[in-house]
Every structure is written in structure tokens, then in C-alpha cells.
């Protein structure tokens, strides 16, 4: 349940992110280059892309991709069932 909630909220955030970036890009095209409004849109684009980079990097780490090193075994990595075998 926890992992599902995390992935669902991450997906929602990314949808919001994509919508905002698309809207900002359209705004930028419509504005006069070099104008004050265009500068504000440019600034907001940078603001907008920073959390996306963070969330994507953390999602990759959480999914076990990349080279992140965890200091303890992750619960998600733990085997679901441990078999005990006696000596033959």
C-alpha cells in the first residue's frame, strides 16, 4: 500500500509538472523575447524543472536503479520467504 501510494503521488506530481512545463513553454513562445514577462517565465521554468529532477532521481534510487548505496538492507529487497534447509 505504501509503495503504491508513493508511485501514484509521484505520477500525479509528474503529470502536474508536465502540464506546467508545457504551459510555460507556450507562454514563452507567445511573449516578446527580452521582455520582463519573458524573463519571469524563463525563471519559472528553471524553478519548475528543479523538483522534477529531484523526484526522478529519488524515484530511480527507490526503484534500485542507479548507483545509490544504502546503508542498510532495504525492506523492498528483503526476500518474501526464507527457506530453511537441514544438512543432508
Amino acid at each position: 500500500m505504501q509503495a503504491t501510494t508513493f508511485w501514484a503521488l509521484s505520477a500525479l506530481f509528474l503529470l502536474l509538472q508536465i502540464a506546467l512545463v508545457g504551459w510555460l513553454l507556450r507562454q514563452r513562445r507567445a511573449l516578446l523575447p527580452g521582455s520582463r514577462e519573458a524573463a519571469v517565465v524563463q525563471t519559472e521554468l528553471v524553478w519548475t524543472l528543479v523538483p522534477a529532477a529531484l523526484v526522478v532521481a529519488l524515484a530511480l534510487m527507490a526503484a534500485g536503479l542507479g548507483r545509490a548505496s544504502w546503508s542498510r538492507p532495504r525492506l523492498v529487497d528483503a526476500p518474501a520467504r526464507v527457506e530453511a534447509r537441514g544438512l543432508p
Partner: protein
Amino acid sequence: MNPPNPAPTLSAAAHEPATAPASLARDLLELTKPRITTMAVISVAAGYTLGSRGPVALALAGAVLCAATLLASGASALNQWLESETDQWMTRTASRPLPQGRLASSVALGFGVLLVASGLVLMTMAGGALAASIGLVTVALYVLAYTPLKRTTPLCTVIGAVPGALPPLMGWAAGAGSLTAEAWLLFAILFLWQMPHFLAIAWLYRDDYARAGQPMLPVVDPSGAATARQAVLYAAALLPVSLLPSVLGIAREPYFAVALVSGVALLVASLRMGLTRSMADARLLLRVSILYLPVLLGTMVWARQPF
């Protein structure tokens, strides 16, 4: 942007240096921004506890927190020393010791350098070289990058959020001796949290910032639309990221519920401010964000999974 008029609270008694030891002590304390320092030390404590293997050694933890207090206080003093001129144009900061002339500029500089230097020495001894290096980077970014950039670009907030998010990393390094992915997760939480928190402050004091010639986002975008969008966006990013300690097994189940509820509260407060852009809702967002961090970090420490 040139400041047109000084802040109205600038007293006529300005530029009379303080002599009484009690008032000097009060002014020096004010130079350390005690509330911001407390918040930074809380996040160092959280990082230290979460990074430590086994039970926390109280004497060592105390020394690390002392060092963190010295570093945060010193950085604040140096920040006020650098901003003594612009502080006099802002109602919020005009009563500080330097713009009021209650402290000599050289005293503030010396005090700040002394605090940072002693903090670095103590952090090296108690927390190790890695933690001290992170402390040095934090102070350098705050004083030499964020503070001067406040006068030139609204992106200073994003850059300033980096030293703002480094304290738990310093605590983790002091407790664990190295930086692992969990430490960066704490960094990400602190980084994202600062945006709705700071944007609420910037919206509340936008006239002050404009008067001081500091182009914060609400100053360059007076409609507040960009401020509102960014506060909501960062709160929306913080929500899933704050759940990760539970998802990844760093904190036990109760943390998940607390993170979810407090994250939704922060998002709702950001949405409210975004929709109304009223001072009352900006104040509400500020209060929620101030409560959010200690609640989240406290629960994370309380519910931490032992190594």
C-alpha cells in the same frame, strides 16, 4: 532596483553604539537568528540520529549539535553583516542591531568568523572531517552565494535552498561517518520543504523585498501567479518524497501516516494561498510549514528502523 525610502521603523536613536553588557549580549544573540538556527540544529539532530548505528552517544551528539549551533549562528551573523545596508530598507529587518547602529560592523564580522571557525573545529573533532567539510560548504554557499545573489536574481531562492538542506546531511555524516542514499533523501525533503515555506514569507514581505531591491519571485511577478504555482508544485513534489523513508524501510509504519497527513496539509495550505493570494492564507501556509518540519523529522526519528 534602487531602494526608494528607508523602512518606516528605522528609529531616530540609530547609530548609537550599545554599551551595556546585557544589551550587547542581546544584540549578539539577535545576530545569530535564533529561530533559523534552532530549525537548522533540529535537522542536524535528525540526520545524526538517523545516521547513527545503534544507540546515540549523548556526549558526542551534544558536541555535534553545539558545533552545528556555532556554524548556523556564525553563518547568520555573517549574513547580517553582508546585508546590513539592505536590512535598513525592510520593515522586517530594520530593527536588527546593525541597521540600527547598535553594533559596529567589525564586531559583527569578527563574531561571525569566530563562531564559524570554532564550529568547524568542534565539528571536526566531534563529527569528523566529512561533517566539518559539509558545514564549511553550507556556510560558504549561504554567505558567499545565496546572500549576494539575493540582489540579482529570483533564482537565489533555489540556490539558497541548497545550504538550507545541507544540515541533516552534516548530521548524518557526523553520525554515520559517510553519506548514503538515505542522507540525500533527507536533503531532498529539506530542499523541497523550503520553497512553500519561503514563498509564503516572500509573499508576505514582498513590499519589503521590493524596497530593499531584492528581486524575489513575488517582486518580479507582482500578480503572485508564479509564486502560487511554485508553492503548490514544490508541496506536491514533497508529498511523495516525504513518504520514501517509510517505503524504503528507514522509518516504521506510523511515519507513513504522519508524513501523508502533514504533506496533504502543506499541499492544501499552498493551494489555498495560491487560490486567494491573501495575506491571511500566506500566514497560514507559513504556520503550517513551520509546524511541518519538526513534526516530520521528529516522527521519522521516533519511528526509525534500527540498523
